[in-house]
């Protein structure tokens, strides 16, 4: 499945997902937010940048505008772009709200949502949001996690510490009529 030139799947290193979930857990019950930068046009998220939630809210997030300018300039200088823009929902499902859809302004980004409503299992889903239309895409993990490797060394089970749940049912929801 393709949307424009983009392959509709998020391929991301397991360690980056772990760092995003750790950030979301740390800021819970407030929403956490951030970016994963990658080389322009590569669609490869490489550099995790946790951002301040300027709203410090359990139901809303906003990048601090000054921090955002600094980070966006840094990406520009490094020939990077925001490949992933993520935030957490702390009491509800990880699905884009109408607010999320209204604000989605990076057409090349994967919008990753993490729900921390369950203390043990982080729910993770990824979406494209273009012109008010939401398309869910699968999340494909690459690489081995540091935690899993440590766990494997300790008790022989490489998946003992996994606590992620990925929603991967492709679905398209058109919110255009509600704007």
């Amino acid at each position, binding site marked *: 499945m393709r949307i424009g030139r983009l392959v509709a799947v998020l391929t991301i290193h397991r360690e980056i997902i772990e760092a995003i979930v750790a950030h979301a857990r740390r800021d819970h019950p407030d*929403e956490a937010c951030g970016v994963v930068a990658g080389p322009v046009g590569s669609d490869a998220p490489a550099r995790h940048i946790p951002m301040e939630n300027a709203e410090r809210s359990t139901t*809303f997030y906003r990048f601090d*505008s000054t921090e955002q300018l600094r980070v966006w300039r840094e990406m520009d200088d490094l020939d990077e772009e925001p490949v992933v823009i993520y935030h957490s929902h702390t009491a*509800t499902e990880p699905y884009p709200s109408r*607010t999320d859809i209204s*604000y*989605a302004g990076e057409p090349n980004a994967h919008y990753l949502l993490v729900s921390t409503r369950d203390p043990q299992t982080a729910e993770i889903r990824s979406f494209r949001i273009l012109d008010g239309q939401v398309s869910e895409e699968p999340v494909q993990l690459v690489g081995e996690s540091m935690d899993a490797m440590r766990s494997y060394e300790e008790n022989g089970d490489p998946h003992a510490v996994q606590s992620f749940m990925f929603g991967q049912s492709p679905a398209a929801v058109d919110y255009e009529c509600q704007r």
Partner: protein
Amino acid sequence: MAIDVRIPTILRSYTGGAKAVTGAGDNLSELLANLDGTYPGLRGRLITPEGGLHRFVNIYVNDEDVRFLGSLDAKISDGDTVTILPAVAGGAFGLAAAAAVLGR
């Protein structure tokens, strides 16, 4: 008088794909009117029908968010760089409810 203006990906359809353009004006309002002459429709993506700065965008003069500089009245001088970025925001709450609670 030339002002360097950085255009975000989502608005480059208005500038023929250009990442940076130049414009003129003594304040942000004049600059956006000037840019709209060259790139019709661009201003409408930044300004609400009521004439205020759209909440979905951030505009900076050099390193400062124009919301701290008088918004559309922000002064601009020759050699300044104006950067436009999409505001990154959202959350579990509905937009109308969030706007009411946050007073914007």
